């Protein structure tokens, strides 16, 4: 095969202009058209070694699905992806591709890598539009499995086990299923419709979803162990870390979970048509530099009455853990970045937040691990006037699911300890995956765990 010229840049994914999109919560990216998708797919040189596949935590057959797109066989492409990843429309949108599949793409060495994420989302969306193939179900095994949590981990494990013929019940604490995909990640990045579509698949597989059901409270884990043949815990990392500085409990200071739950899950952006309010005032500061911080900042930007939104982060932009694309989107939308800045205290007046005192930071020389620590610059304190502040400094596993449980190995930051091959916990018949074993992680990681666990649970059920 003779060498062919390949385009160095990605075919850009059409998106709405910043000015237009900050007026609503509709999706920012419009997605590839079939023509654009084919054009982008042709940039893949079909490497025989396919390093991209190694970069993907669930080993999506990337060159194969991309070739199918290049041939215009979009539905086949989606089904190819689904051999390994049952949520292409979701992962295509939210995976940190620049650190995973696209990071090692060979084309990326010459220019920009192939836009694997956008192609994956395109294929998933296309299939959803023409009608998803009814999932095949094995004959009933008579075995019952309980899944705790309906985030990506719970959804994936439930689907895999149901396909294998087991009877699966999901227990979800909130009044809506979907986990972070619904209450955390905003609609302008991941429309709820897409998540609902995946949940429909569960329904077709006969999975029962019990909402308003808190394990640890409505029922304890021990009861599930008695009633079911196996249990998978995918309760996520819902416990917000608080910044213990003066003024934390002033009115106007939120944890990211509260802010996002109010707006995304409870519909506060449609208040008073929806009952749940969210108070922001005119100036909002978001503390943190991860995906959650970007989501909060961009959400705040879209709320009525908000004029200025700041991101306050103690290292520089380069160290921000958020996806590059999200940082870029936030900047386009007018979020002001105050990097190398650390909050020292919240300032209040009559119980209401009025400002935040910050100190400038500088980065140390790299230490042995190569990490540059932020150090405060003495005497550089200054005040930013704000009406609301949202803490997005991370979260840990919520202990409620472990309430009243004996003999479950818990790690030092509250995570459930599992065997990394099988996701088995220290309790017989109990498996766990996703954020509850990693602390904060990614959607695809939760899915990867869930698939491993499903396979191990299947095996376990037949040993017993």
């Amino acid at each position, binding site marked *: 095969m003779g060498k062919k010229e390949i385009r160095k840049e990605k075919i850009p994914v059409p998106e709405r202009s910043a000015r237009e999109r900050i007026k609503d919560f509709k999706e920012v990216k419009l997605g590839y058209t079939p023509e654009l998708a084919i054009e982008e797919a042709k940039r893949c040189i079909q490497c025989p070694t396919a390093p991209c596949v190694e970069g993907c935590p669930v080993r999506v057959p990337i060159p194969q699905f991309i070739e199918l797109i290049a041939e215009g066989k979009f539905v086949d492409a989606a089904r190819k992806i689904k051999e390994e990843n049952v949520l292409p429309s979701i992962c295509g949108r939210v995976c940190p591709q620049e650190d995973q599949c696209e990071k090692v793409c060979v084309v990326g060495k010459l220019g920009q890598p192939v836009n694997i994420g956008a192609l994956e989302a395109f294929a998933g969306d296309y299939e959803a539009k023409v009608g998803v193939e009814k999932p095949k179900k094995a004959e009933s095994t008579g075995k019952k499995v309980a899944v705790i949590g309906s985030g990506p981990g719970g959804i994936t494990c439930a689907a895999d086990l149901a396909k294998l013929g087991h009877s699966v019940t999901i227990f979800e*604490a*909130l*009044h809506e299923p979907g986990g972070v995909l619904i209450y955390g990640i905003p609609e302008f990045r991941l429309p709820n419709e897409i998540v609902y579509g995946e949940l429909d698949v569960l329904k077709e597989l006969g999975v029962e979803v019990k*909402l*308003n*059901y*808190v394990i640890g*409270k*409505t*029922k304890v884990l021990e009861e599930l162990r008695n009633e079911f043949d196996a249990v998978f815990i995918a309760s996520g990392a*819902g*416990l*917000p870390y*608080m910044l*213990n500085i003066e003024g*934390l*409990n002033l*009115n*106007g200071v*939120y*944890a990211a*979970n*509260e802010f996002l*739950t*109010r707006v995304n899950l*409870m*519909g506060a952006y*449609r*208040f*008073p*048509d*929806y*009952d*749940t*309010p969210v*108070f922001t005032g005119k100036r909002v500061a978001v503390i943190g530099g991860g995906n959650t911080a970007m989501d909060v900042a961009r959400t705040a930007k879209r709320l009525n009455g908000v004029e200025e939104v700041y991101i306050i982060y103690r290292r520089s932009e380069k160290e921000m853990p958020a996806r590059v694309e999200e940082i870029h989107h936030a900047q386009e939308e007018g979020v002001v970045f105050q990097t190398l800045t650390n909050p020292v205290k919240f300032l209040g007046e009559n*119980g209401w937040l009025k400002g935040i005192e910050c100190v400038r930071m500088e980065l140390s020389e790299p230490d042995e691990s190569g990490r540059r620590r932020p150090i405060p610059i003495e005497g550089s304190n200054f005040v930013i006037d704000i009406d609301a502040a949202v803490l997005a400094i991370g979260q840990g596993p*919520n*202990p*409620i699911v472990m309430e009243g449980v004996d003999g479950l190995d818990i790690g030092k930051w509250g995570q459930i300890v599992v065997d990394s091959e099988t996701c088995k916990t220290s309790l017989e018949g109990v498996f766990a995956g996703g954020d509850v074993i990693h602390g904060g992680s990614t959607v695809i990681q939760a899915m990867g765990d869930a698939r491993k666990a499903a396979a191990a649970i299947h095996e376990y059920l037949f040993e017993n």
Partner: protein
Amino acid sequence: MYRILKKRELAENVDEFVVEASEIAKKAEPGQFVIVRISKKGERIPLTIAEKDCDAGTITLMVQRVGKTTFHLSCLEEGHVITDVVGPLGKPTHLEKWGHVVCIGGGLGLAPVHHIAQGVKDAENRITTIMGFRREDLVFWEEKMKLISDRLIVTTNDGSYGMKGLVTDALQELIDSGEEINMVITAGPVPMMKAVAELTKKYRIPTVASLNPVMVDGTGMCGACRVTVNGEVKFACVDGPEFDAHKVEFDELINRLNMFKTLEGEALKEFQKKHCGCGKE
């Protein structure tokens, strides 16, 4: 299905609902609460499990109308279904055989006080209950509380029924009478709980208060319900709602309850514009 099996108006702006919720009833302990949402666009609000009946599979809620959701709830009738009910949430009341326990409730605080007093009685304590109201026509659940209590004192601010004065006046009298009090448990409006705590602190009577901050999920996920107790930040929905009243920063709680006041006022006004026909003003 969380069906309303019984409903009655207890007093002006206070309704009682008996709701089908068998799995919650099975688990509910004194001091615990549920979170309800009454429509697809609704807010999640916490309400105490005032009573439960495991055999009937029901829980009893006592609701004081203060804003949009509680007014809307009062429009629901027997046979209607509450969209979402989740629980039982929060830590159950810590119960032991203390001796003489004084349970103090005002207004919506009677919901927790009723269920807690039952637990206190089951733990073989002697109970004096003090219930405070503004006026005679607002008094409710007197009979119910009488059944549990060894002694019942009702106070009204204007003296139109029972003793004239505040619950703290009744408590002061009790203390002055020299009777030994081993424990005080209180629930109700925050200023009332604060006053009770200030009084019992003077006499070093151990006191527990059931706090009612704004909540969203009720499972420790959002941090909306944070309160300061003994200088530490606690999440009332999972660490509480009951805390050592002498260590609670009540002023902070009072302030935090105002966080959404302006917006809530707007919501109620909107709601009443649309729903003036539903019977309640």
